[in-house]
């Protein structure tokens, strides 16, 4: 299977889905992205990227049970698929290779 390259946003989003763990849904992913990924994004942009990743088979989603704090609405949970994990690792190895000889900035 061909492992697809990831854009910067996709990379961060996949990592956020992983970090948000089992309860990864749009607003928790948005929070992880903001607090740990240092990137704020609107729900609208988030849905677009999540849908694209799902279409490419890098994540999968399932519907949960309704909860009171969401006004009785159900959550859509997201999880990274094996293909998504492979894409992450490949991107990382590309980055590591590219970073190998980058000098540190001089201090002073």
């Amino acid at each position, binding site marked *: 299977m061909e492992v697809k390259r990831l854009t910067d946003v996709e990379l961060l989003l996949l990592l956020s889905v992983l970090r948000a763990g089992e309860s990864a*849904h*749009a*607003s928790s992913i*948005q929070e992880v992205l903001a607090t740990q990924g240092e990137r704020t994004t*609107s*729900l*609208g*942009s988030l*849905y*677009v990227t999540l849908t694209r990743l799902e279409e490419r088979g890098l994540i999968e989603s399932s*519907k949960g049970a*309704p*909860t009171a*704090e*969401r*006004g009785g*609405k*159900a*959550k*859509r949970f997201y999880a990274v698929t094996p293909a998504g994990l492979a894409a992450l690792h490949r991107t990382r190895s590309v980055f590591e290779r590219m970073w190998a000889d980058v000098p540190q900035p001089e201090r002073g």
Partner: protein
Amino acid sequence: MTAPWLARAFLRLTVPKEELEAILGDLEEVHRWRVAVRGAKTAWLLTMHEAFGIGSRECRDRIADGMTGRWISGSEVRLAARLLLRTPMMTATSVFALAVGVAVATIGFTSVDAILNPRLPFEGGDRWVSIEALDAESRHSRSVEATLFERWRSESRTLVHVGAVRETLVNLALDEDRVAVVSAGFVTPSTMPLLPVRPLHGRAFTPADARPGAPPVVLLTEPLWLRLFEGDPDVVGRSIRLGDTTYTVVGVLPNEAVYPTLAELWVAWSAQDLSAHLDSGVSDTGVFGVLSAEAQPSDANDQLGSATMAWTDSRPDQPAATVLVRRVGEVSGGGAPSALLIAVLVGALGVVAGNVGNLVVARTAARRGELAVRSALGASRRRIVGQLAFEVLVMTVLASALGFAATRLLLGALDDRRTRDLPVTMDFSVSPRTLLFVFFATLFVATVAGLVPALRSTRSNASDALRAAGRGSARGIFGWFGHTMIVVQIALSIGILGAATMIHSGWLTQYVNPTLDVPAEQLWMAGLIPPTGIDRLQADALSEEYLRRLRELPDVRAVALSTHVPGTDADARMIEMERVEGEAILRIPTIDVGPGYFGAVGHTVLAGRGLRPEDYLPGAPAVGLVNADYASQLLSDRNPVGTRVRAAAPADGEPGPWIEIVGVVGGPSLSAADPERTGGLFLPLRNLDATQIIVRSIERPSGFGAQARATAFSVHPRLLVTGDAVLSERLGNVRRIYAVMGSILTGLGVVILVLSLVAVYALLSFEVTRRTREIGVRVALGAARADVVVPIARRVGSYVVVGGVVGTVFGLGLLWMAREMLVLRFPATGAGTFLTLTGLVLASALLAALVPVRRALGVRPIEALRAD
């Protein structure tokens, strides 16, 4: 705190069903978090922004995916979107016109519903009825005596409860120095268990609170609790003094407690006090009831009618009484005003729909050529109509969002029933039914207006259609009716906007920046209400005593009574004057002043004498004073001293006694708004009703109110000092109100003007487009450009000139009415405003015609000839 309904509604419209629940849930979660972190208002804005972002992305995706079904393909949708954006001004104007239509219709239907279908804002509110005693002969309202009330209570089988309520102002004394004047509602305690309000703290009233010997108890409402007790939950059990009685606070009511009284404080009305009050003959008590499960108001009316008749029979020497039972909020005789209201609404909607229709017709008609070409190139009729329908749908959705947002903004102020100053039974929340109805009605109007010309241009075969488009044969869409409507609209908009801006500028110059002839920073003012249940002499004595004590307070220089707030308009009364030219009856500003008034406000007597103490005595010869402007404005500068005036005879009565003018006072203007009506009369104050106190103090008198209320309380616990303020602050509030009202008036005028310009633009654009080929042919045959342009300009000019003249007459009529009603003088440039407006409309109309005329002149003659 849930996400804004508009955001949720927008998502429901745009997001596919299978995604909706999760997205709404996410939005809900994020909104709660935002409210906690950023506050409700910012959260509202961010969430709205978010929802529109999500919804529009969804729409775009669906368009890009070509998911819009078989009726129209993705490429058609893209084409429609491009065409909408290709003429951004036309699209924006159409959306604006539609949005105004949506807002007018929604506000109109909601207001009509609020007025025609009054309802109490709680479940089962439709079972509550008001019970009114009437005089059997005159059918006028009369007071309910205790025995009648008891009979209603004991004999009503159609009602499960009969209660009573009375509202009044009271002195609430927290301690000797802290006295506040609050509104108190005396409520029968047995009513409370039937109301669906639960106290925030403590308990509600129980029937036991009405029993003889029960301790007097009150409930605070949330606003009062926060204002005077800083939201202290330990207030329950505390004693407070209301007038001359001490009460125990037993609970705090939430903000939703708005019925049977909007008062700040609810007092448990004991059975004993209720009977005593009913028998005192003061008719300020409202009686209400709750219908039993099966009963209708008419059943209760019949039954209480028999009970009232039996009661009347038991006292044969007294006038007969009857009863009227209605649902709470229902008004009898509302048929004519309601019909008028609906007629006005339908008229307004008709004008708006006509405008919108004109615009959309013009928009589509202007594109007939393009449609014909597409049709000739093989686009099916269904495709073309589908594309136009999609355009109309997009415009309607945008306009509905704008219109509903504007509605929400305008009607949102009426949500708080406690502060809005309207009957509690009027519900101005926009029902989903109204929203849906208005949306589909708008869609219908826009679709019919947009599709009819499209269907026409695609009806015939391709070459006919092309030829017809070339000739511009679209006669019949705008007939004489359309032209008349344009003229009427121009007239209405020039008249209304002209009058509105002049009233606005009148208010601004007279109220917002008045030239005051009194030291407004040093005058403290308040209303003085003597206790009820005492006679006139006692009331006068109390007022005297109160003024005496005020004069003794440190820093107070002078104290006086008057019926007038300096810097505002005095009431104008019909006065008959003796003049050299003969007697005249005029509306003359007149105020009643107490002893020492002129000294308190800093005016001196210029001629004759001032008012003396003996002028106030009963039976004293009637005398009055005038100001200097009176002589110049009404007596051609002759000396007014010695002349006589009297109250003009009312339609069915005698004139008042002659009053001799004994002096002239320098300065005080009796009209804030009309410099030509500042002259007026000062008469000795004899009636203490509706009196204003004026206190002049040396230092800035802010904070004097607390001292003044405490002093009143010490004179008599039920002597009320209300609405106190330093004059400059009080006038500031008046100015703010006028500034806001003026802006609203002008804003309405501007909306009407813009709508008219839209209509003029639509018509001209359509007409000129229709004649494009004709113009081209004329140019080809050697006509000069001027020969083409002048007739069009003349046509535009004739619309605007006729509309302008009619509008100016109409506007001047409005101003004349406003001047009579508001005693307001307008800037001298009256006619100039209308001329300017007419010029503005003319310029805009010519500009509107310019674009299509240029296009027409640009047609190559050879093409024009070949096409024909």
